[in-house]
């Protein structure tokens, strides 16, 4: 039930916000901006502290009596363990280079969404408790006590950062504000105050291997559903294998590709590609245990990220594969690229990945033993191993959204574009300050793609949508390609709100459409069941 303002409240007409300094401006929890709190069973499932029924809107968050000590001890511990955290607390000179680079700030104008100020929320407490200047000069030195209001302010704003790292690209000191958010969230989690949209996937992933809690038989059913769909479109039956010991390659992709449109069409693209390559020597299996590439533990704590990530190597070892191929995911690749090798590696039981089709050695994956499917496919195209008919995608005018984590987390810019240009005839880039390392976030990353915070997501995704709108109006772009499952889940809603004529696709859906399979029937529709260019009449007759 909405809060209905009283007449006397309505009569107070003032359109200007308070002009108090940030420390004195109270944080008001606004509906549409925050996510529901973690449910007790989802905290208990992974042994996290303080499981209880609670709501962030409640006055009492039901924290333990010594909550302040727990947080400050946690901060002290992390300042000692993570040199980067200590540096990032100390070296910021508040130059403001990052201030206007955050999509949440650009879309809202809320100063506490400026990365520098979001970090100050934490720094101010750091100064007060861990620096002499802060202890002596208090507020003058930008220091403040940790109070319940401050803790709630942390919660409100650290769950308004998608850890996209756009701001860090512009920081002259190289401060990674995403890591400050990570530390903030770790401290919040010491008191059991995660959001449920993160905590539920964590608990599900720990128990069943994927975010939605899909059990093995349902996972297989879903993929068989795709096989039926592919057969309907192409006349060719693809036969993936699951949990097959002795396969050469293990394929791991975000479960979003399996259970959420339009990622499902991307999954069909993978299946078709693997079928195509089977006769050329590809020996690959899916896993119903490592059925999730994504890792919401990464949005919780380093320890939780490590625990959930462990299943990838564990399953690779159990099945006895040589290396791992990974699907189109965002933060999965940041974890793989920057953390997995030291979390759970090095995996000496695996081999340096080599493409069984082209013989290409993926030397960059020598340590992690995991290759991105776009690297794999781009290599196939480069060696003329794929028969493609890009005209099947001629009804699409495509632009490419660099998903934050692959682009800024691993410098992954060219391979997806190379693939798109080979499977589509109409491709246009968005403006240069909105792509590649300067790409704008979808507004829903780092576990923020819930339903209850839709206003936050829409304003956070506004800078991205604004650039899409530009190429839509200028070039007629009607399809936004990306390589991240959260993007594929979040961008359709973003487009529906800001640029309704643009749809969203994964890169391998486009590959699936263009790929000419041996023995296929004359295709009349794409993987979505929409008529191919020039086939509109045939489709009508069928109907």
């Amino acid at each position: 039930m909405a809060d209905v303002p009283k007449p006397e409240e309505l009569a107070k007409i003032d359109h200007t916000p308070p002009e108090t300094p940030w420390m004195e401006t109270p944080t008001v929890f606004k509906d549409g901006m925050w996510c529901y709190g973690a449910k007790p069973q989802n905290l208990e499932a992974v042994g996290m502290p303080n499981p209880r029924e609670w709501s962030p809107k409640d006055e009492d968050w039901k924290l333990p009596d010594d909550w302040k000590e727990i947080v400050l001890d946690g901060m002290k511990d992390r300042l000692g363990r993570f040199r980067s955290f200590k540096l990032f607390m100390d070296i910021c000179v508040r130059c403001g280079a990052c201030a206007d680079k955050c999509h949440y700030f650009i879309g809202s104008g809320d100063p506490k969404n400026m990365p520098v100020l979001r970090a100050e929320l934490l720094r101010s407490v750091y100064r007060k408790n861990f620096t002499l200047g802060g202890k002596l000069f208090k507020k003058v030195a930008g220091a403040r006590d940790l109070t319940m209001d401050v803790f709630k302010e942390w919660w409100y704003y650290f769950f308004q950062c998608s850890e996209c790292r756009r701001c860090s690209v512009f920081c002259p000191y190289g401060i990674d504000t995403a890591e400050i958010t990570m530390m903030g969230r770790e401290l919040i989690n010491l008191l059991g105050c995660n959001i449920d949209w993160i905590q539920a996937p964590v608990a599900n992933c720990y128990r069943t291997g994927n975010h939605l809690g899909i059990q093995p038989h349902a996972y297989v059913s879903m993929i068989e559903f795709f096989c039926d769909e592919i057969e309907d479109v192409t006349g060719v039956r693809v036969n993936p294998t699951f949990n097959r010991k002795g396969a050469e390659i293990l394929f791991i992709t975000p479960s979003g590709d399996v259970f959420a449109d339009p990622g499902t069409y991307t999954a069909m693209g993978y299946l078709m590609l693997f079928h195509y390559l089977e006769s050329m020597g590809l020996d690959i299996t899916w896993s119903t245990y490592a059925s999730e590439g994504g890792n919401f533990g990464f949005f919780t704590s380093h320890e939780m990220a490590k625990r959930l990530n462990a299943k990838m190597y564990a399953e690779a070892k159990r099945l006895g594969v040589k290396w791992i191929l990974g699907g189109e995911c965002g933060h999965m690749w940041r974890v793989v690229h920057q953390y997995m090798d030291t979390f759970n590696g090095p995996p000496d039981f695996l081999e340096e990945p080599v493409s069984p089709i082209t013989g290409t050695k993926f030397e960059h994956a020598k340590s992690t033993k995991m290759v991105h499917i776009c690297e794999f496919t781009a290599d196939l195209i480069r060696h003329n191993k794929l028969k493609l008919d890009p005209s099947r995608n001629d009804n699409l005018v495509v632009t490419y959204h660099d998903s934050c984590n692959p682009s800024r987390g691993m410098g992954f810019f060219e391979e997806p574009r190379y693939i798109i240009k080979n499977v589509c005839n109409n491709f246009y880039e968005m403006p240069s300050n909105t792509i590649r390392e300067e790409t704008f976030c979808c507004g829903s990353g780092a576990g923020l793609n819930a339903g209850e915070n839709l206003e936050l997501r829409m304003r956070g995704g506004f800078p991205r949508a604004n650039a899409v709108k530009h190429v839509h109006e200028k070039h007629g772009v009607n399809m936004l390609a990306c390589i991240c499952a959260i993007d594929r889940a979040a961008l359709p809603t973003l487009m529906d709100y800001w640029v309704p004529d643009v749809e969203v696709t994964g890169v391998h859906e486009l590959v699936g459409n263009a790929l000419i399979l041996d023995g296929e029937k004359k295709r009349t529709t794409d993987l979505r069941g929409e008529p191919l260019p020039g086939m509109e009449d045939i489709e009508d007759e069928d109907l």
Partner: protein
Amino acid sequence: MTLRDILIKRRDSLVKKWFELILETYPEDSRDFFRKQKNQFANPLGYNLKEGISGLFEAIVEHGCDREKAAPYLDQILRIRAVQEFSPSVALSFVLDFKKIVRNELPGEPDEILAEDLERFDRDMDEMALHAFDIYMKCRERIFELRVNELRNLMFGALERANLVSFPGEEKQVKENKI
């Protein structure tokens, strides 16, 4: 000289003041960025507000409060403000603020010429505010729809793909689950 002539003559100043007044609904620390960053992709909010205000001025002043012409510009501004911090009254306040701006521009102009024009202008602006409210509500309703659609698509899509549901008229039979 009619009110329309006066306003058209002072177009640049009026549009600038209107833009400034709408900026005042944002926190002081943020206004400079929205005002000064000229790149439309680095500063989509400032750009769209400015474009929207400018277009709205044309629709109101040059086209006699043409609601159809005003609609896309109102949408350009309100689609943004509908997902920002504002209460509905503050989100929409900029429309009626134009009356205030116009009145502040007028001292020195002969009253007798303007009286009738001003009365009509006030009435038109009230109508425009109501029209803006319709557009704002459409944006808010769209948000509610999208929220429901996301949940519905996720749940029904997953059930369908897991082969756990069967709908009347569908040929597909529930298959035996295989591992």
